[in-house]
């Protein structure tokens, strides 16, 4: 049973990265980015391929961090320069990266034989190490992003999402900050994809299906606790994983877990609408 708790927390921490990405796009930029799952797949495919070429677990993560933003840049280009809406952009980016990811990672690549980042803590059992490492990464990214939003660049990112016209009046290009924020979000999601491959030991072209829903639900749970970017995102992500684990534990058919997720989303959003009407936050 502790295994189950451990697994829940592990995935909760890993998916926190995507929850943060979704917070940056949907909440900060007010742009519902449907192309995040392409970044997840891209990070995973690249990680698998880098393992194959003999890169160490840490070096490969760094490479993924550097190249992940390109997915976001592409999304930004389609949305800002070609003026496509979020649905069209999402579909196009996901389709293009399906082919790219297939090319980089093939349809299915087994990497369980390679050393991953989770076995690198000496003296600690792998599963505990995994939890510690994933928690640390999630926390580190949370702290980093939280700090970034207090800097000059961060204030401009927030301003861009809220009132891009005013940003132009301040002599700054809102496009630049939109791109930057998108690329940051995609960087985190790509990292999550790479960590996912390191943890599960294989890359599959279909592994990015459904992660947007996971991120969104985690985000909604987090926002029912607080509207800011903080530890709530981690709690929300873990809470959702716990709910899913619990439905499995109660021997509820996994098919029903999707129904439960949808129901949960509706309930959470309705509750938030009510409290929003009260306090007029947005």
């Amino acid at each position, binding site marked *: *049973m*502790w*295994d*189950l*708790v*451990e*697994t*829940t927390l592990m*995935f909760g921490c890993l998916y926190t990265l995507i929850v943060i990405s979704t917070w940056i796009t949907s909440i900060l930029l007010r742009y519902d980015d449907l192309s995040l799952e392409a970044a997840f797949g891209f990070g995973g495919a690249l990680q698998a391929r880098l393992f194959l070429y003999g890169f160490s677990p840490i070096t490969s993560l760094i490479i993924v961090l550097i190249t992940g933003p390109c997915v976001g840049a592409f999304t930004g280009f389609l949305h800002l320069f070609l003026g496509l809406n979020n649905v069209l952009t999402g579909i196009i980016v996901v389709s293009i990266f*399906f082919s790219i990811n*297939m090319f980089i990672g093939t*349809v*299915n690549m*087994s*990497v*369980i*034989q390679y050393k991953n980042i989770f076995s690198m803590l000496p003296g600690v059992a*792998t*599963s505990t190490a995994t939890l510690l490492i994933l928690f640390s990464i999630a926390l580190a990214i*949370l*702290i980093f992003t*939280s700090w970034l939003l207090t800097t000059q660049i961060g204030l401009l990112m927030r301003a861009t999402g809220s009132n891009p016209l005013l940003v132009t009046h301040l002599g700054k290009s809102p496009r630049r900050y939109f791109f930057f924020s998108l690329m940051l979000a995609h960087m985190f999601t790509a990292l999550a994809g790479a960590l996912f491959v390191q*943890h*599960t*030991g*294989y890359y*599959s*072209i*279909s*592994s990015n*299906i*459904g*992660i947007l829903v*996971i991120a969104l639900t985690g985000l909604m749970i987090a926002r029912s*606790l*607080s509207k800011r970017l*903080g*530890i*709530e995102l*981690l*709690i929300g992500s*873990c*809470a959702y994983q*716990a709910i*899913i*684990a*619990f439905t*499995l*534990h*109660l*021997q509820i058919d*996994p*098919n029903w*877990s999707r129904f439960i997720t949808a129901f949960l989303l509706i309930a959470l959003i309705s509750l938030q609408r009510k409290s929003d009407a009260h306090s007029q936050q947005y």
Partner: protein
Amino acid sequence: MIRLINQNKTVFIGVALLTIFILLLVITRPTKSHRFTIGILQTASHPALDAVAKGFKDYLHEKLGNTIAFVERNAQGNASQAQMIAHYFHGEQCLDGIFAIATTAAQAAMQHNSNKPLFVAAVTDPEAIGLKSSTIPACGISDMIDPDKQVTLLKTLVPDAKTVTLFYNIGEINAQTTAKKLHDALIDAGYKIKTVNVTQISEVPLVIDRALKMTDALISPIDNTVACAITFIAQKALEAKVPFIVSDNLLVERGALAAAGVNYYEIGRAAGSCVFEVLHEGKKVTAIDFHTPDIADYVVNKKTFDSLGLDPALLPDNFILV
């Protein structure tokens, strides 16, 4: 950092939720009522995999009667669902072993560190997904086809065929592996090959007409997507008067013309015997290797055969008619 945790309320809520979660898990823990319990993780619902599950259960019930119970879960072709179920199985105390049916389930079940023995069946290429070299104790049965038998089938039933269309889901590793083998065997036999791919089941209606154009036969390797869409594809092939050959015998009942594949029910039984040897006879899991069953029947669908207007004289006696 301080800003993050300064709202003690949030951290308190987080800790409280975690405690509740653990308490609930403890309270609702299932008690062990059978001597052995095996978790069955099936990749998707289609005839072949269902037959494996049935063969597996039948064999073990025959051998162990009521002392064995099964917890069955289906991943509905979804990799992340397979992951969730696999993690749940690994974490559940009362399970003595995990039986994974087909590649997606096997991969999901493979990467965890619990010491539960892993049995697999209907995994086309265990070596390719790392099953043979991993540190997880595992053994099982593969369902790799013999492509030469497919070619023989084609030559026997449709002797005038020159062009063949290879139709499969490019996103499934088992399909890719077996398609490559088929491709090479067909080239060696002198056929011209067209390849038509889909990436998910919703694309099948969109490409099937193109796949059936200007070809003498349609052939599919071991492919879960094709298996799930079999009735539709078979019907379309029949309307276009194109012989449709598959790699899975059970799909022939659903309308395909013919197959020279393995018997999935027998595969299930063979996997059951692996489990029996480990649980009951105490054999070590790694002592049992992966093997491919030798059984390959030629199966033909009589109705489809007649509707296509093929010459009955071509049917040899050793072909089973359904």
